[in-house]
């Protein structure tokens, strides 16, 4: 009987799930190590997905078909990998509770974490309760209502793009790629819930680089009357009735502006997750900003410089869900190529 090859997948987010399924399909025995007590990763934070408002739960359900009850896939929850190293052509993962896993190859699919908005002190997140993050907006939206802490429907809501991205002050020069379209999506969702309210998006550039994104942007203007103001918010403060006063510049008119909104949503950016940074550092495959670095972004994007260690999804850089799922599959193909070469 042939000896079945084994692969460790670290992280059961969309990339890990999609990679594991493809490998299992190739009759490879996969062990998925997930640090949380459930799968799905960041997809669990979304209510509906851009650009088509598809229910995130539905997408997750179809994603996990043939994942949970697959005889070639073993999912182990609450396993945080603290060390990943190569030893005698085998990949060894040590977990925080002292367990050891071994395999012929490993896939890093440790994903991203969202930027901690508290670092942008001037925006008052954590101080003024009506300043919330885009992740919190999703949660509220999942529950069907967007309400201020006072419990009222916001008459005016503002979204601020690029929080924690494109900002030297927090050490992130890069664009997170998903927040522009997420702001457009959330502004539309808000206007659909509360057509009488007003929605403003503060932006530097509107980056709509995906299919149907630009169309959605156009629709948000035309159909929903979302107002786009080009300028970054420099300061928030509380008014006497506990609304949020914001200051920015209307850069298209070269005029400083001030306005009061009932709620401010910070479109927080994408950063490398802790595990991504730690595990890629251990294997000398760490790239800028703590993300993992692929062997070649054009031709070997799922390979790392470490033989047998593969990269899938947003542990490499900010990716959309669509790209992440595809990248998981692509990583699986690379692993199969590799396992064939190593007999």
């Amino acid at each position, binding site marked *: 009987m042939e000896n079945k090859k084994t692969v460790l997948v670290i992280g059961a987010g969309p990339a890990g799930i999609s990679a594991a399924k493809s490998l299992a399909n190739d009759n490879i025995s996969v062990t998925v190590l997930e640090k949380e007590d459930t799968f799905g990763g960041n997809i669990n934070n979304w209510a509906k997905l851009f650009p088509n408002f598809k229910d995130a739960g539905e997408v997750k359900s179809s994603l996990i078909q043939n994942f949970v009850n697959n005889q070639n896939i073993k999912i182990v929850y609450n396993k945080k990998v603290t060390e990943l190293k190569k030893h005698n052509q085998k990949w060894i993962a040590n977990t925080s509770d002292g367990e050891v896993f071994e395999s012929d190859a490993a896939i890093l699919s440790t994903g991203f974490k969202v930027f901690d908005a508290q670092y942008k002190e001037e925006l008052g997140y*954590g101080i003024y309760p009506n300043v919330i993050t885009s992740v919190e907006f999703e949660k509220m939206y999942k529950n069907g209502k967007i309400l201020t802490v006072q419990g009222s429907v916001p008459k005016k809501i503002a979204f601020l793009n690029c929080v924690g991205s494109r900002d030297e002050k927090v050490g992130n020069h890069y664009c997170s790629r998903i927040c522009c379209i997420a702001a457009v999506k959330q502004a539309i969702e808000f206007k659909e819930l509360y057509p009488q309210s007003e929605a403003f998006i503060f932006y530097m550039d509107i980056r709509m680089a995906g299919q149907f994104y630009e169309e959605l942007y156009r629709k948000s203007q035309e159909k929903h009357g979302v107002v786009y103001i080009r300028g970054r918010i420099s300061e928030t403060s509380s008014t006497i009735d506990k609304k949020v006063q914001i200051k920015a510049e209307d850069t298209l008119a070269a005029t400083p502006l001030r306005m009061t909104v009932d709620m401010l949503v910070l479109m927080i950016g994408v950063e490398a997750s802790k595990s991504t940074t730690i595990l890629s550092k251990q294997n000398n495959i760490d790239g800028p900003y703590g993300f993992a670095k692929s062997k070649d972004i054009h031709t070997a994007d799922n390979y790392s410089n470490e033989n047998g260690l593969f990269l899938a999804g947003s542990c490499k850089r900010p990716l959309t869900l669509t790209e992440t799922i595809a990248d998981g599959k692509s990583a699986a193909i690379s692993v199969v190529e590799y396992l064939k070469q190593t007999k």
Partner: protein
Amino acid sequence: MEEFTKKYWKDYQKEIADDNFYYERSCIRQSFFPGSEAAFLKILRDILGKNIIDDPNQHTCTGIGYHSDIVPFDTTMTVVARIFSLMKDHGVNNFIPSCVTSFGIFNEVVETWNHSPEEYEKTKLFLKQATGRDFEIPQNISHASDIIYKYRKELKEKMPYRLVNRNTGKPLRVVEHIGCHYSKLFAKKSEGGMEFPKVLVGMIEEWGGEVIDYPERRHCCGFGFRQYLVMANRGYSVANTKKKFESMQPYKPDFIVANCPGCTMFMDRWQYTIAEMEGKTYDDNKMGIPVLTYEEMAGLLLGFNPWDLGLQLHQVQVEPLLDKIGIPYDPKDKYVGKSGNFLGEPEKPENLVTVYGK
């Protein structure tokens, strides 16, 4: 609000020295708030028992000249070096500027030396050539308000009064204003960071008051050096302060406290200017909102005589505040000098009420 600020504020806790200080006075405070620096020295020496040098040989840091493009930076560095050399003469190495502009200057110069050793060498040479002196960089530079902040708990124990309205039992509502150069040049050199410095908040809350978080809290007082030096530009400076007054007015503050000579002066004096130019005041009695320095605030609570603290030299009169706290004062002593002679009363403005009618 508090829970979070506390957490994040940990990142901005700086080291504040605890004894053997060299005190660098402010150029302008002694004429505008003449009791403040004396009160600071008294608090440090008599109440906290610290060793602090008040050197008659000290001189300007060039701050106002530097920020008005009159004094070049090389000169500023050399002048600062001379002050440090005076400190060396006294054998202490913890430096306390009284002025926030100076605090900014000293930090800027020291940072420059740290980043560009060649500038440091140049300054050493300049000072040697000009005065034959040597200097050392202080071990610690803390603003005078940092020191009071550090000892706010100890001082509280010695205070017979609290920032509480004696008639209502409620905390006094205080506007705090931090000088820009305290935290905006080097956030790490401040207590609490650039956006929400804790240095005055810490004192006010410790001593029983309530801090008002009004929308323009973080806006500059309008001092701006060049902007007020040239008479024709002053409107620009006043406009900034006015913006703050308008923003804080609905909160009905009992008083304003600032940690910078410029801010304190302008927030006090511009109330007169605005009242005389536009007839506007920002309290209910047309008397204006009293503006204190943090030493005056501490001194009052410690039971110092308000007239010894020099409060009669403020533009906005403070008696209503004294009555709220319950601090006794003798109106007859208000304009009596140290010699015991009557000094004469200041002229009365047209619009701003300066006589407290009982």
